[in-house]
């Protein structure tokens, strides 16, 4: 039994950590369900089985993830509410052997076998889970994360978040198809908070009510959800006094949000976390102190490397960049993925061996300060050619987000009839006149947007990131004329 199995067996021995007490079974009943599901999965599968999980979002999904991790059964989390065509794409790509859904759960607990079957043999190089990411191409890629990588992540979580205890109340907001939810799993098995599964389904008022009603202390979410929660339309009518820890990651943390949080959530432990799915949830972290060194040119730092992870900034020739010099972010260490499932082409592009060390090439652009704090400024594929210049859209966002009054910003490129790119910038903020003046007077002409559009709220993707695709479509349809 490895340390991951040991930790999980220990907490499942007395499963009293699920919140929403009136809506879920007693701990004794949950323990029986755990043993039944466990025996069912061991009985019907082998060590090499790859199983897809497609359950409704409630305590059962977490329980089944824990069982798979404990017994050593590799799994792919699916969302039963996603379009069938998307889940079919994943099936075609991953060729999984079986699906465990709500019906399987019911069968498992009805036909319970007595005793506790022996789990599968495990080693650190075995696949633990496979998460599908869409990436910029839109084609889903299955990221294989090993037990060893996740064990390293769990060991870091236990120490770094030592202020989170069994007295805390954690709200799981992220979908299980999004690896941010595996931070919740890691917190659950190390710090043992009470966990509540959110069912807000994009309704931010409901999310705010869940936080208030359940006296939630800890939330791991994307900055955009927090941006909504901290906005006056919601903040002014909610009581967030129970919130002690905000763990932000998965998307850009804007300077506007930074200032909003310093006003509305000062005294709360706020963390900015960074890591692609390919590096097991997160590989750098920073507790925000609202110290001026945390922001450079509108970019909030994502902090320093976590346990056994290393981040590097390389130039085009794979030489290490100097402090403050921008380059592409590469990651090495214990948490690098095993590879993309059934995708040798992508593996050879993304996993590179340099001087015998394997690096994951992130496609992110960033720099480091002299204290080794990492700043992510954009994406390699955000670079466009406009008026003869190479322009990075994220750079424009960084410049603009440092202007006072700007809360959120997103720039897109639109090709006109002459096949020239025009940069259109969307801003949520106050003092429009001042913002426009500042853009005119401070931005170099070649990166200055051709058009600035002020909007009240940004459309978001399923994972809570700004949906640039929708902005582009709406713009092309003349919605912002």
């Amino acid at each position, binding site marked *: 039994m490895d340390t991951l199995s040991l930790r999980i067996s220990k907490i499942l021995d007395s499963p009293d950590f699920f919140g929403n007490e009136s809506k879920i079974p007693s701990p004794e009943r949950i323990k029986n369900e755990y043993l039944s599901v466990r025996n069912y999965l061991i009985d019907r599968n082998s060590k090499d089985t790859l199983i897809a999980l497609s359950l409704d979002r409630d305590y059962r999904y977490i329980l089944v993830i824990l069982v798979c991790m404990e017994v050593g059964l590799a799994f792919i989390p699916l969302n039963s509410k996603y379009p069938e065509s998307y889940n079919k794409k994943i099936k075609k790509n991953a060729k999984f052997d079986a699906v465990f859904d709500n019906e399987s759960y019911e069968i498992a607990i009805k036909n319970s076998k007595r005793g506790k079957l022996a789990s599968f043999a495990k080693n650190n190089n075995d696949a633990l889970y496979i998460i599908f990411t869409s990436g910029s191409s839109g084609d889903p890629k299955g990221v294989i994360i090993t037990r060893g990588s996740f064990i390293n992540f769990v060991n870091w979580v236990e120490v770094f978040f030592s202020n989170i205890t069994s007295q805390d109340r954690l709200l799981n907001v992220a979908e299980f198809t999004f690896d941010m939810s595996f931070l919740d799993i890691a917190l659950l098995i190390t710090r043992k908070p009470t966990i509540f599964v959110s069912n807000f389904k994009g*309704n931010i008022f409901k999310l705010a009510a869940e936080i208030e009603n359940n006296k939630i202390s800890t939330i791991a979410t994307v900055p955009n959800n927090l941006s909504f929660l901290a906005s006056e339309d919601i903040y002014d009518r909610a009581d967030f006094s129970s919130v002690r820890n905000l763990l932000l990651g998965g998307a850009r943390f804007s300077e506007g949000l930074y200032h909003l949080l310093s006003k509305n959530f000062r005294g709360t432990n706020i963390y900015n976390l960074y890591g692609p799915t390919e590096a097991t949830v997160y590989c750098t972290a920073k507790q925000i102190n609202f110290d001026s060194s945390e922001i450079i040119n509108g970019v909030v730092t994502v902090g320093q490397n976590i346990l056994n992870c290393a981040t590097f900034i390389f130039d085009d020739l794979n030489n290490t960049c100097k402090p403050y010099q921008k380059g592409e972010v590469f990651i090495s260490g214990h948490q690098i993925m095993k590879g993309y499932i059934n995708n040798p082409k992508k593996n050879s592009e993304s996993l590179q061996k340099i001087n015998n060390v394997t690096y994951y090439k992130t496609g992110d652009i960033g720099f480091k300060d002299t204290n080794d704090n990492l700043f992510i400024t954009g994406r390699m594929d955000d670079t466009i050619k406009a008026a003869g210049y190479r322009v990075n859209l994220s750079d424009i966002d960084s410049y603009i987000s440092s202007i006072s009054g700007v809360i959120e910003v997103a720039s897109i490129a639109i090709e006109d009839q002459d096949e020239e790119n025009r940069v259109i910038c969307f801003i949520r903020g106050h003092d429009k006149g001042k913002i426009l003046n500042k853009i005119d007077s401070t931005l170099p002409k070649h990166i200055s947007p051709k058009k600035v559009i002020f909007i009240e709220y940004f459309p978001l993707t399923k994972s809570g990131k700004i949906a640039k695709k929708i902005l582009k479509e709406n713009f092309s349809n003349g919605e912002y004329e």
Partner: protein
Amino acid sequence: MDKEDILITLYEIISEVVDGLETPLSREVEAKDINGWDSLAHIKIIVLTEKKFNIKFSLGEIAEISNVGEFVDLIEVHLRD
């Protein structure tokens, strides 16, 4: 203002926020039935409704609404108060 008038005003508010609203607005309609009624639209609809009727909802009230009918009832209660 009776419930039918409230429903008509609500239809105008939702049309303003959701482009190309095609679904006829009945009491049973839910946000998921209307293309474009996402989290962003939801906030806009609530805030515009408050402005239009000069009322203010509590967080608990908004979080509990599950369809247009319940929304109309809630507005009516506020207007009566």
